[in-house]
């Protein structure tokens, strides 16, 4: 069962917090204070801030595990408090750090929890369970009948994710879902979640205390402090121009490097590649050099094949006018990076190859241009400048 027949267009809702305040008795200041924020449908918003900033409380008011003292929360325009809590919660996916799988139910039984509450027929539930297990990368035949105690921590959290998705909820709440597993598993879960979110674009409220995780996962980051929303912006904007010292401190002194982690190679201006085609006559290439048509980089030109795929760098003094340009096997022009590579990874590839230039290719492997080490450094420096200017203003 790998068909997508039960993922019905994957509902995603618009989630609005409108002046939401929560006061707990015996506390001097509100846990959440006049919190207003709109999450666009299908986007991932990470609520982040130091512990006690109210991020978890804000999230739990969405599914009424906590009731607001004032203000309103709406999903697609309908106030959540007009709904009976149990019914509302069946339409909101919920994932928590400690997973909380029911130890007495199998993996299938756990995933089927919400569909059973919604009284789906058993055939549909079975198909849905297998489909979700496939989606989260656990082979249904192998894992369906296991009990949670027989799974690793990472597998348990995957099942928790599948369980939260089972009822095809328009909104998902995730409370530090990946912070209880080891770093390698966490990284894999984060990547799988992002991949999953592309297939099933739910509206997600994701609570985290880890700025690196937030930068990686979020379409939008909401920084909270003492119950208030301090800044709400896309990750790149947050890193480039923190609204105040608190946010600047929170995102960290290495925010220039972090910013490189979210910009992609395609986002900065590439230099034109000095391309010559393997088999082309050397005299033709030399003529273009003389005319200034071909601008060598470090006295080298890039030999490509007929599909414009990079083969190797060739020093210009080895071009012979009376010989065709030599072909080389694919992969000699190290490093080659894809246009969707982050600048941070591109930087790391350049440093790893001790090179000053990387060839940038598109999805089919054809050359788009050349990325210079100094361009990355300039980009990083400019984001620091922008942020310094922002702090001064």
């Amino acid at each position, binding site marked *: 069962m790998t068909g997508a027949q039960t993922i019905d267009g994957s509902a995603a809702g618009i989630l609005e917090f409108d002046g939401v305040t929560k006061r707990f008795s015996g506390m001097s200041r509100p846990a959440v204070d006049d919190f207003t924020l709109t999450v666009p449908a299908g986007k991932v918003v990470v609520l982040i801030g130091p512990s006690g900033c109210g991020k978890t409380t804000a999230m739990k008011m969405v*599914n009424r*595990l906590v009731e607001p003292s004032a203000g309103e929360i709406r999903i697609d325009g309908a106030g959540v408090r007009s709904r009976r*809590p*149990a*019914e*509302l*919660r*069946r339409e*909101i996916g*919920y994932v*928590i*750090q*400690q*997973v*909380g*799988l*029911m*130890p*007495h*139910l199998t993996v299938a039984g756990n995933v089927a*929890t*919400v569909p059973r*509450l919604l009284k789906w027929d058993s055939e549909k539930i079975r198909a849905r369970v297998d489909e979700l297990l496939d989606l989260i990368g656990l082979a249904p035949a192998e894992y369906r009948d296991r*009990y*949670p*105690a027989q799974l690793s921590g990472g597998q348990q959290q995957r099942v*928790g994710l599948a*369980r*939260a998705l089972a009822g095809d909820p328009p909104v998902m*709440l995730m409370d530090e879902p990946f912070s209880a597993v080891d770093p390698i598993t966490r990284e894999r879960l984060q990547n799988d979640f992002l991949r999953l979110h592309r297939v099933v674009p739910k509206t997600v409220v994701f609570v985290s205390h880890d700025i690196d995780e937030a930068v990686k996962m979020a379409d939008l980051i909401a920084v909270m402090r003492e119950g208030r929303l301090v800044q709400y912006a896309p990750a790149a904007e947050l890193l480039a121009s923190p609204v105040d010292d608190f946010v600047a401190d929170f995102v960290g002194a290495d925010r220039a490097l972090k910013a490189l982690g979210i910009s992609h190679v395609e986002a900065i201006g590439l230099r034109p590649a000095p391309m010559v085609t393997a088999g082309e006559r050397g005299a033709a290439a030399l003529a273009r050099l003389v005319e200034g048509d071909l601008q060598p980089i470090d006295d080298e030109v890039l030999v490509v094949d007929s599909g414009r795929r990079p083969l190797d760098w060739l020093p210009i003094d080895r071009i012979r006018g009376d010989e065709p340009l030599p072909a080389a096997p694919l992969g000699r022009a190290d490093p080659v990076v894809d246009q969707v590579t982050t600048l941070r990874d591109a930087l790391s590839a350049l440093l790893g190859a001790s090179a000053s230039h990387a060839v940038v290719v598109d999805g089919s492997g054809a050359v788009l241009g050349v990325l210079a080490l100094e361009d990355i450094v300039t980009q990083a420096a400019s984001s620091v400048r922008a942020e310094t200017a922002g702090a001064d203003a």
Partner: protein
Amino acid sequence: MPDIRWDWISRNREDIVQLAIEHLVLVGISMAIAIAVSLPIAIMVRNRPFWGGVATYTSGVLYTIPSLALFAFLVPIVGIGQEPVIIGLVAYALLILISNAAVGLQSVPGPVRESARGMGLTGRQLLFKVELPLALPAIMAGIRLATVSTVGIATIGAFVDGGGLGELIWQRGIQRGLFLTPIAVGALVATLIAIVLDALLVGAEWLMKPWERRPLPLSVGRRLAWARPSEWKRAATG
């Protein structure tokens, strides 16, 4: 064993069987009532620490009353026979049953409770689909313990004419100048009943919690597994 009169045993075989059955009925009725009373109490007090304390304290006080004295106190109220014995046995079983069930219900992990609520289980669904199934091992442990001790205490019921195996020990043994044979038979049969009931309950408990199967002692478990159709499939597919 020269003191055992084997001829007495063979002459009284029918009586012995009859009294053993009577004993089982006493234990069965008492345990049924005790379970029926203690489970609702445990469920009601599970989220109310004060009433939980009241319930365990009250049943704890009942437990400390010497059984002989308790049966004797009850005679003026309900007369002699099975009634005072059953009332007494229920009172003794309550402490074990209530405290075990309450502990079991409270031991449901917080994250399990929270995720269940977050998925939209109502209070009643939480109780029946999550709390009770997870408390089952503790509840069963309480039932086992209470059953075994009830089998023993029930022999004392013979002092108030409650019948059962105590009659072999008291009326036919001690009261006839310490005639040892019936005393030994009564004690032995009661012990056997306790052991068999305990083993049956272990098996029942094992069947009820497939999620934490451990091998049973004496490899009873492997044989009991065949009582579940789902196990046939598992065995067939290797």
